[in-house]
């Protein structure tokens, strides 16, 4: 296959970037999208041009590192998959593919296609945990969790923190990411002790990071590689309002 690429190139966070065109011949349809970038980088390096910087690690769809906005959609045309799980057979010979980084105020570009997603870490640090010290747990089977509840919690916990939800949202909102964690711990009995404070603190941190508000377009859920449901956003809204109305934080 022949592929034309338009790739966002930006030296660092302080400089302006632009789309640069590249042409690749001999792209195999069995290549993953990132392997196509490896091939591009190999040829750029041999020519003495700076290779394209992009985030990637496990290349099997679970670490959440890869993050490319491909032809107008996060992680490209496939749904339920990350960029590293996208293969060139999803494209046609001669296609032009535009590749940009995630765009959000809270995700500043570091270089080329790489962005800084540490805002997500700070949101989790603000309350995305159960306060239990090592060694103080009781026997695991003493907490009964019906299968349906465990399954629902697992659906939320499947989030890989890639940020596709933010990238897809017209408001760059992080509601799906934040709600997945709030919801997981709100469903489970282990999360009950701190559920009010958790919702309040995580939402406050989300706002402080500069993410937008939720317009319920549903784009986040469609583009989420783990297909996390909008139900969790509703649950977080409920948790947050309930917490605000009844918590002791006057």
């Amino acid at each position: 296959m022949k592929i034309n690429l338009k790739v966002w190139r930006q030296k660092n966070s302080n400089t302006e970037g632009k789309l640069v065109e590249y042409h690749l011949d001999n792209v195999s349809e069995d290549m993953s999208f990132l392997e196509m970038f490896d091939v591009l980088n190999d040829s750029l390096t041999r020519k003495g041009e700076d290779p394209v910087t992009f985030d990637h690690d496990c290349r099997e769809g679970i670490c959440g590192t890869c993050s490319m906005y491909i032809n107008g959609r996060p992680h490209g045309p496939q749904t339920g998959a990350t960029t590293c799980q996208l293969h060139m057979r999803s494209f046609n010979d001669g296609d032009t593919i535009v590749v940009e980084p995630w765009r959000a105020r809270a995700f500043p570009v570091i270089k080329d296609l790489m962005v800084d997603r540490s805002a997500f870490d700070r949101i989790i640090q603000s309350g995305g945990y159960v306060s239990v010290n090592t060694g103080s747990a009781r026997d695991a089977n003493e907490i009964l969790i019906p299968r349906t509840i465990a399954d629902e919690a697992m659906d939320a916990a499947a989030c890989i923190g890639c940020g596709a939800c933010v990238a897809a949202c017209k408001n760059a909102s992080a509601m799906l990411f934040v709600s997945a964690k709030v919801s997981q711990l709100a469903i489970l009995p282990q999360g009950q002790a701190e559920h009010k404070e958790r919702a309040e603190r995580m939402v406050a941190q989300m706002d402080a990071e500069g993410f937008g508000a939720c317009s319920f377009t549903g784009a986040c859920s469609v583009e989420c590689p783990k297909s996390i449901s909008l139900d969790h956003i509703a649950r977080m809204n409920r948790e947050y309002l309930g917490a605000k109305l009844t918590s002791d934080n006057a």
Partner: protein
Amino acid sequence: MKLESKIPEGPLAEKWARQKFSLKLVNPANKRKYDIIVVGTGLAGASAAASLAELGYNVKAFCFQDSPRRAHSIAAQGGINAAKNYQNDGDSVFRLFYDTIKGGDYRAREGNVYRLAEVSVNIIDQCVAQGVPFAREYGGLLANRSFGGSQVSRTFYARGQTGQQLLLGAYSALSRQVSTGKVKLYPRTEMLDLVVEGGKARGIITRNLVTGKIESHSGHAVLLCTGGYGNVFYLSTNAMGSNATAAWRAHKKGAVFGNPCFTQIHPTCIPVSGHYQSKLTLMSESLRNDGRVWAPKSKEDAQKIQKGQLRANDLSEDARDYFLERRYPSFGNLVPRDVASRNAKYVCDEGRGVSKTGLAVYLDFADAIKRDGKKTIEAKYGNLFEMYEKITGENPYETPMMIYPAVHYTMGGLWVDYNLMTSIPGLYALGEANFSDHGANRLGASALMQGLADGYFVIPYTVGDYLANIGPADKIPVDAPAFKEAEKKVHEQIDRLLAIKGERPVDDLHKELGHIMWEYCGMARTAEGLQIAREKIKALKKEFWSNVKVLGDSQEMNQALEQASRVADFIELGALMVEDALNRNESCGGHFREEYQTPDGEALRDDANYAYVAAWEYQGDDQPELLNKEMLEFENVKLTQRSYK
């Protein structure tokens, strides 16, 4: 060097309890006077950093990823073992211990393995308390499954994402400590050297991967939780960033390296599709419960399949060779990982492999679908089939899957004593980074167990003993000569890499190393082949340092530079793996030397001469390493030969 394993005296079941009592404690008010450096934030690193911060120590946690949550522990699929015996099927701490020792082909320490089995039960409690959504029965109790041919159901799991859920649990505990200020997090920061002064580990030198800044960090103890070195093979199931640099640089500063040649090859991975391949994807071993492994009987058919002139379904039953069932009638497709892997290699070596590259065999579900119905198979393996289809574009319900073995885990690593301390006082190694409790072969669902055992339940006790002994004053500042000198060396190496300005991109050289290692130090090894590898690696090292092409500069985000620095270490580590494989004139677990096999083609151990940990000591650049032996003593198990006939 004299290696002391420091296994406590007394009966096996009491060793850990005795040790915990005899270890010195740090006064609660004094804990805040100690600084601990944790490198790596996977299961071992995140759990250790969180637990130590909870105790009151000041922790600095480093990872090269952009977030601690992305460490490669996240990719583990199958599950985590624990001797809970919730299923009432005869499991016990001793049985888990016994299975692990035997599965490791008797090349692990009894004391360590028993402790691992003992604390396994606490891990599950801890993870559940954190909100890890393990699979449950309808009534609300935890579900278990049997894994990797185990006779009991002791594996806990969270769909096919157990590693992810356990890591997110440890990450949440770590995040909580970051919010309290007890842990300072350094993401996108890579350790490039260990600072040793006065015979003790004093801190580390790091590079900020975004700005390129070289920095010193001083601490009372350094914990390396940096994972395995499977990427020596270039193609493996490891993440692209997984590397051995931290461990290798510590090795060069005096930490001895245990059993480097022990690598595990996983039989059910998606085969290589072309030269551009960057990584291999593992599919759960559970597939072999229902899938039948086969290859064409004749080379001619195989060649037609390779050229695309014939399809798998065109071959009649009598043209197929179900080679595992044929060779191992009683275990069939469920033989251990190493046996399944090796047989697939043999078939492909004979020219009977399938796929374009000829490096694959079939895993066929047609009979299972006929027997149980498509629905049942879909319920069991739906997500795996989907993943396979995403990658290969083929539908495994209709055409057999293609599989090939891939490097998956490294049992070898930095040598540690019972307290997880390396041969450098104050330097610890946890999880896959240490030479570990798995001997020559790791059982399925045991890697997660070991990482968390080390981090949650072992290191919080053992590091305290060391700290109490040295006292809070025993620390050097970052402007001490030892730090300045180490920083200078790090700068020098980076400048040297950038100055070469050769012809070949880093990946190209890495791939070449991978080919050498896979060919000569992979599933089956021979003395002759290993000697060839030794020479080839020597030449490759020269080629690397004269012809690598790294563009850009050091004061910016520079992924090629990061890779180059890692590959430089992989080349040296690869050379040591070859030496170790040459030295070990026996076959055991993941190490199969073709010269040492039974008439049936099984691994032939030599317990009389090789029941030891080979601990290699660095002697300087390009000098042969010195072999130290830690003899293994078995008091509680009887050494037997495996048989799967």
